[in-house]
């Protein structure tokens, strides 16, 4: 009676169909769509300009050159904005809960997370992703890196793991809003804050911030530790060399915590209804 489980291919197709519907809907207001994309691109560009200006006054930041910081910025930015485009819209869950629309998600034969991610899929945020890719590309061109297979793998791994880590922080944080709607602001400080923090070498921060970014919200695994390996630099924190390859482990751990928090949030909602 019940249709068999969907294959990965079918899930992907459904994702495209539903996210495509959102893009088509947004395209009805195309002026606003185009303007938003361009502004986003420009704003994040200014963001990077700030770092360039900073390097006009100092030649090194915690021992890092401009190109190296740009590499860090790009690595973190690509991971963050992929998560931003594909996952960040789940933060709208509090709006859904307050308006009662969350109930409508629960009467459909799909997980609420999948529906949230597709219903509010925001292609217009891709402007920021384009900017981060550009910065990463320019940085790689400017740096004199000797590309080995392992270095390429570490960069690819960092981007994938970074996307998972940022997505996990988003989902786990958003899950907290099932208990307290006001939690959203705190969550934002972890997601956006995590992104800003990972754009700079960890060495510029006080020790407690460095430890938090390594062990609590493992954002440092997104860019800092992989970058240390690729650029062949020493770690100011003095952690063992192997930490540089631990991004996937950090990603898996954050994904598990996020998954647990999210299901606990749904359970809480289904027992209280608000």
């Amino acid at each position, binding site marked *: 009676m*019940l*249709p068999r489980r*969907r294959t990965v291919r079918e899930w992907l*197709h*459904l994702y495209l*169909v*539903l996210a495509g*519907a959102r893009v*088509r*809907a*947004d395209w*009805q207001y195309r002026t606003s769509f185009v303007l938003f994309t361009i502004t986003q691109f420009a704003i994040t560009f200014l963001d990077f300009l700030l770092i360039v200006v900073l390097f006009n006054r100092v030649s090194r930041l915690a021992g890092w050159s401009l190109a190296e910081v740009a590499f860090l910025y790009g690595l973190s930015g690509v991971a963050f904005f992929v998560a931003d485009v594909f996952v960040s819209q789940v933060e709208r869950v509090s709006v859904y809960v307050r*308006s*009662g*629309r969350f*109930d*409508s998600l*629960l*009467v*459909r*034969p*799909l*997980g609420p997370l999948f529906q949230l991610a597709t219903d509010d899929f925001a292609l217009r945020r891709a402007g920021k992703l384009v900017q981060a890719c550009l910065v990463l590309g320019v940085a790689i061109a400017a740096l004199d890196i000797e590309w080995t297979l392992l270095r390429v793998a570490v960069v690819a791994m960092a981007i994938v793991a970074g996307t998972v880590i940022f997505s996990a922080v988003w989902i786990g944080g958003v899950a907290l809003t099932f208990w307290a709607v006001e939690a959203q602001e705190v969550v934002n400080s972890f997601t956006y804050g995590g992104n800003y923090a990972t754009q700079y070498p960890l060495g510029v921060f006080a020790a407690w911030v460095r430890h938090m970014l390594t062990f609590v919200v493992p954002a440092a695994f997104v860019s800092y530790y992989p970058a240390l390996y690729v650029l062949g630099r020493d770690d100011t924190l003095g952690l063992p060399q192997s930490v540089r390859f631990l991004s996937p482990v950090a990603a898996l751990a954050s994904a598990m915590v996020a998954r647990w928090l999210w299901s606990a949030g749904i*359970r809480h909602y*289904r*027992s*209280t*209804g608000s």
Partner: protein
Amino acid sequence: MSGDGIIIELGDVSKEFVVYRRAGRLRRERVVMRAVDHVSLTVGAGELVGYIGPNGAGKSTTIKMLTGILVPSSGLVRVAGVDPQRRRVELAQRIGVVFGQRSQLWWDLPLIDSFDLLRHVYRVPAARHASNLADFVSLLEMAPFLDTPVRSLSLGQRMRGELCAALLHDPAILYLDEPTIGLDVVSKARVREFLASINASRGVTIVLTTHDLADVERLCSRLVVIDHGRVIEDGTVASIRSRYAGWRTVVVDLEDASAPPLVVPGATVERVDGPRQWLRFARDSTTAAAVVSSVVAQARVLDLSIEDPDIDDVVTRIYTRSS
């Protein structure tokens, strides 16, 4: 579906909510509210049940437990052979839900796009989808506005869209929460007609909550009344009416506009308005025929009719008795 024809089963189901009430400046008091209080109920496949009660009586909470949105605090729930608490996604495939005030449709896209997207969400085979869609489009007369964005539809058109959206995947059960709220008379009638027809032709079990008792009277074979979380009445509309309002009214238009109130054994004149008089009588003490013949013997009658008590009156009596 289960073999014995029972499609919805609630066994001693309760749902409690914890609310915090302010007690003093900073202290909060923890209060347990029981929204649904030991409800037991079964619905047979193909039934059309009206589920009514005053605001806050526990209607929506019950519906939310039957759709798998809410998990009961205690008791057993089985819907379409499935435990909604454990197998929400599987259940979702077999039920359709229309919440009158919330939309299942894609707001900025043409109505037809929503139907197509739902085909993918519910994995309805293309041929089945096409034939269902053709049926519903003609039954609900949706052809003129299929290409209109949902946000530009009138409420009546949107509600027809919602009904179609809830039924395209051939659900065994359709839940409707206030489906006629805010609709004009014509749209209401159309919605009712449609529900009656899919109940008859497709055998869809329908459970609807409403404040509009005309919905119940026109549609439902069975009425369940809930108040303070408890089922206080469960039966056919006719049986409940005769239990709570065991009277009828003979309305007569007399030739003489200034006639005094009539005197009829077993009946009392409730109201006089010029030549028109309302005589109420208890069903168990006399008959309509006896009242009419007594009236005709006393005065010249131009016109007459016999009225049943208004369903609103009946329900008001049920609510006041229970509180």
